[in-house]
């Protein structure tokens, strides 16, 4: 799936540009509320927990576990090479994201597996994916 056509990546918006730029530098950002302290993803202009407009981008450690996963056998477009893994990863610092699991036989993944963020190239950009946090 590493041949994903970069033209498919959307142009960052004013809100999301810092997140994409951080990915290029292999850092995972998340929004944190200045009022209630909670984090959220995907990006919104206000806190989705308490509606406060006061928030900041912070760097997430990118450590978490697999909440749910699916091994995709039929790709949506030729740029994706099946099989590949889509997962919901729950981050230890209190948020979750839709992502890919990489670096291991797709059939080997299980719910609860510990994972760590990594970044894979898509054209000139990088996007987050997760690999096993347990040394092979």
């Amino acid at each position, binding site marked *: 799936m590493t041949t994903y056509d970069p033209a498919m990546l959307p142009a960052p918006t004013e809100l999301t540009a810092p997140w994409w730029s951080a990915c290029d530098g292999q850092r995972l950002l998340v929004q944190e509320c200045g009022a209630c302290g909670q984090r959220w993803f995907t990006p919104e202009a206000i806190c989705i927990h308490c509606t406060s407009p006061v928030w900041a981008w912070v760097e997430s450690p990118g450590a978490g576990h697999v909440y*749910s996963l699916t091994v*995709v056998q039929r790709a949506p477009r030729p740029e994706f090479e099946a099989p590949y893994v889509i997962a919901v990863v729950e981050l230890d610092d209190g948020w979750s994201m839709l992502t890919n699991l990489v670096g291991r036989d797709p059939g080997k993944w299980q719910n609860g597996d510990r994972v760590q963020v990594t970044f894979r190239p898509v054209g000139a950009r990088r996007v987050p994916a997760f690999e096993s946090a347990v040394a092979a």
Partner: protein
Amino acid sequence: MSLRDVAIVGVYATKQAKQLPDRTSLDLALEAIHGAVGDAGLAIDDVDGIAVEWPGPGGLQRHDGASWARVLGHPMAWTSDGLFDNSGPRGVLKAAAAISAGLCSVAVVGGGQVARRVGSEPIGSGDVLEFTDYVGAYVMTQFALAAQRHMHEFGTTPEQLATVSATIRNHGSINPEAVMYGRGPYTADDVLASRVISTPLHLLDCCLVAEGGAAIVLTSAERATDLDCKPVYLLGGGMDVTDPHYTQPPRLDRTGWLGQPAIDRAFRLAGCTAAEIDAFMLYDATSFEVIRQVEMLGLCGKGEGGAYCTPANIGLGGATPVNPDGGLLSYTWLGAQQMTLKVIEAVRQLRGTAVNQIPDVNLALATSSASATHHYECVVLGNDR
């Protein structure tokens, strides 16, 4: 005024097929409108409320209502714009609210679609989703994530999913109006033998992609008594919306029980329970969605949906028959109006005119959308107010 003061007086479904090469979205929608208005014993001039999907070409994109006023030849008193507002239980509830509020008298909900020409590719999110598309996620993968977590938590098995698929597809295989008419019968083993799309979903666990049109006509219960038709009454309904669709991970603990508040509200308004419903038209984008909905309906306990969904329960002769028309798995899926067709099948079952008619139907439930889409609506319909 309440929902009970509104009646469904006309329904119409066009031919549904994998492709309708000689049709346009507009003429399918028009056929559905004229068909449903005729079914009600009304004339086009009586229609003063419109919520009909028009995915182009032509018309004002995303401003369907204003376009319809021109096409139907007279001004509208009430309009609704937008794909999901103009279909299924949500469209019906919004139109009913407009009628009961006195904003219009006769409203049509529905639409038609041939525009989804995607060849052999799976259906995507419908838009470029900034944090979804690069992952390689598409509609079925998101449904798969909800199903996988349910299996992880409750031990739901691939065989149980396959039993749902086989049962509903077998309803469609004997429905001459179904896109998959004559295909089958299927066993659970046949479903499991079909290729995997996105674990745990096999090809036969996934809904169709097809084309067609559908429409429903609503008016006041009072006016319905003057019409030459058998009115069906809205007894209850509800909606539950959590996120813009496909933008957020379909976590079972957040959207897995999506629709529970809608179902609770619908039964509270209707003054009945799921046990009293005679026929269930459940949104079956995948086999798993039926399992999760029978749990929310309280037909069984949480986590017991897989074991509940046997032919003895959800089959045509079962205790709680689900999707007698073959559902999205075998009858049709056409973009948004499959939601309208859920209501149409409920009306036909109540009238006693369905193809695969369940005996003595007095209460029917129709639901739309599901765990991965982040919105869910339902209506309880009955023969008596």
